[in-house]
């Protein structure tokens, strides 16, 4: 539980509550604290995240015209 991000924690709580299980006040307090602190941490790491995303997009393979034509012929 201690290493989970807020999204995982909330979804875990929802599943348990839907099953009729108890979620203790202590667990909720940890989630509330983490949600309170989450945005600051997210903002601090936002630059790194956007660079990673950009790099992934650039690495997407693309078909050349000849490859696309060959693929189409195979399909037909």
């Amino acid at each position, binding site marked *: 539980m201690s290493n989970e991000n807020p999204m995982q924690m909330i979804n875990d709580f929802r599943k348990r509550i839907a099953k009729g299980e108890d979620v203790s006040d202590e667990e909720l307090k940890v989630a509330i604290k983490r*949600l309170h602190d989450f*945005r600051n941490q997210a903002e601090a790491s936002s630059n790194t995240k956007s660079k990673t995303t950009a790099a992934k997009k650039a690495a997407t393979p693309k078909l050349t015209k000849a490859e696309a034509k060959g693929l189409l012929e195979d399909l037909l």
Partner: protein
Amino acid sequence: MKDLLPEGHVPFLFPKTLDNTILSTWSTCKRKAFFAHLLHLHPKNLSIHLKAGAAYAAALESFRVSYWDASLPTFKDAEASMLIAFRTLLKEYGYESDSQVEFEDSTNKGCWRMAEALVRHFQSQFIPTSDAVRPWLVDGKPAVEYSFSMEFPIQNPDTKEPILYHGRFDMIAEFQGGLFAYDDKTTSQLGVTWMNQWDTRSQFTGYCAGSRQQGLKLDGVIVRGHCFLKGDVKFAECISHRKDWQLDEWEGDAHEATRMFIAYYERAKAALEAGEDKFFLYRLFPAEGKFNGACDSYSGCPFKELCLAQHPQRYLDRYRIRVWDPTNPGDD
């Protein structure tokens, strides 16, 4: 003739109680009002915006009641009130399936985003001890989920009793010595357009008019926007005043809209009694949304696929019957 409408449909009657939802729908598009409030059609798939908004509103309300009700052990205990609000959010949002989780997490209104907004609202943005906007206290209890009903000087065409107009808002708030209707609004963007839209909003003028009829003078409305962006939650506040002449004008307009709704209803009722199929009465209600852009406003009209089809009866299996009751909006 085979019944075209979904199972459980109800007699063709004019609504006994109106509210802003019904009258604004009528004023926007007569056909939409026919589908929603005379046939009582409702899309089978509930919008995540509605579900998430309802859960979030319930959580905000539970915090306010817990924190401000002097008879409760959580009175002025922000931590205990937050725990109660948090549990309310989780319970109301619910959990149905793994596929739903995947969908929710990809939207700005996933449960954890709502939880984040709830925490930031009361712990960072509008901290109860310093918030200038406070619930109005009546006998030590906060006036949250305030509702009223007022009679219109118009007879219901079926029962011949006065038409009722019902309003319900998040709370009556005290601010700088005045009383205001208070409403929380979730949104996807804030800015000048968001701020400027409330001065003429019939929903809020109706709140003030209804409260005035009950002897409670409100100065206007306080609207707080809770904005769910992709990577952030932001808040805004708008204070919009209402004068008596505006309330008088609203009453006149609301009565006129009601009379027109009744006139169209009575024409349709006569056609039904003459043998027309109930569903095909839609032809007597103009699709005004196609003229004024309402089909695509907000998240889109739920009846758009009916209006796009030459034979809309083929799509009725995508709808169920749900009678909208202004006095009990949570009843489904």
